[in-house]
């Protein structure tokens, strides 16, 4: 149990963090495009 909460959970969270980092770059690019189109 202690290995799940102290090792597996942190690794899952790090995976989520990396995935969101990639997602947010794409999202900001989308916003930039919207701003460019609306100008």
């Amino acid at each position, binding site marked *: *149990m*202690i*290995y*799940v*909460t*102290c*090792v597996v*959970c*942190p*690794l*899952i*969270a*790090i995976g*989520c*963090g*990396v*995935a*969101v*980092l990639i*997602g*947010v770059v794409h*999202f*900001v690019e*989308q*916003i*930039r495009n*919207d*701003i460019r189109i*609306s100008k």
Partner: protein
Amino acid sequence: MNISVLDIAGIISYFVATALFAYFTRRTRSFTEFSVGNRKVPTMMVFASLAATIIGPGFSIGFTGKGYNSGYLFYILALTYGLQTVLVGVFFAPRLTEYTDCHTIGDVMEKRYGKFTHFLTGIVSVGLCVGFTAVMGKIAGNLLHSVTGWPLFLCIATVTMFTAVYTFTGGVRAVIATDAMHFSWYTLVVPIMLLTAFVKLPVSHLELSASASALTSGGFAGLNKMQIFGIMISFLLGETLIPPYTNRALAAKTTSASRRGFISAGLFCTVWLAIVASLGICARQYLGPNIGADDVFITLARLILPSGVFGLLLAAIIAIVMSSQESVLNSATVSLVRDVIGINRPLSDKAELRLGRMGTLLIAAISVVVSTYSPSIIDGLLICYSIWAPSILLPFLIALYRKNTVPAAGWLSMILGGTTSIIWQTILKEPFGVPAILPGLVMSTFGYIVGHSLGTSRGNNLPEPALLSGQEK
């Protein structure tokens, strides 16, 4: 706090990165863009923004302190919080996403219960969000104060106004983008801190496991059944669909983006709370039993992280606070414009956007004053917290499922539920250890039934939701 130049450089770099993000996502041309991001937010961003808002100082620093004192007790009790978010994702968030002409909970309430209930919802929403903004500002201000030594008022104003400026220019899209950036940052830094603490542990893993078990059992022994039930119910219902969460459902691109975003955030919440509770349990092995619960997180970080990395962790704490503060600030503003100022006269989109921007600065300024002026801000927040579910939740959830509703049921349920909860908490001081949320919910249900029986039906004034006919937005 004793910190190095490298640590300060880490914090400044983080503020610069956030400012750059805000710059790239600035400019909003309509109120729909400002309040619900043109309803174009994808699954990943709904998830990240929701999780970032949920994980505030309480679910990080606070939970580490709980883990330090009572092992996995609060983690087990708070599993109901993750469950709540998953259930909202399955049953309610997709329905909310169908309300494509609504910007707030108040807008949805008006469709089912009329203007008076809309107004009441607005008052509760703005009050709750101002309270949250003030508390978050105070926490972040205290942190900045301990790092820089600047006057506390200046620190609170700096952090709150920094958040307000990019909420002011970019609206909810800027909030969601920066939320996601904050989320990425602390989901990298805090788990790495736990892995470091686990690897460098001064005792064996078997001893750590035994200590966790003993602390958890001791924690359970210190609470009676009613207290355990009360805490679980508070985690389950206390924050259900508060304005920033509802706002994410309204901003989602599709019903499935909304559903998946909420379910993922609920599941992530259970993983995150395990991490911070474990951090507290590990901290006990490093620090012994005599540290104040609120200081455990920082003291452990200072002990195990090298200079520079510690600064990055401080930046992560600021990120945790700011990601919650910016969301409640934006929700407070949108609610102020739609549910309070614009309740009796329809405003043009331009006027709403202008008011939204001014409102952001106004609410930020009020929050700064409230957080520094009132020493009992936490008490005020607890009152807001305990009246949310009893006053709003029942009529709101029913509004999402029933078409034939009665206006009197809405406002009577809100007034009875909210008043009962306030009286139970502030005057009666929660007798028998029963949390205010329980009698509040009972009276809210009673008020709804009485109002529904005696009032006149409004009839169905909403188009059939696409969800019911199997289509997707």
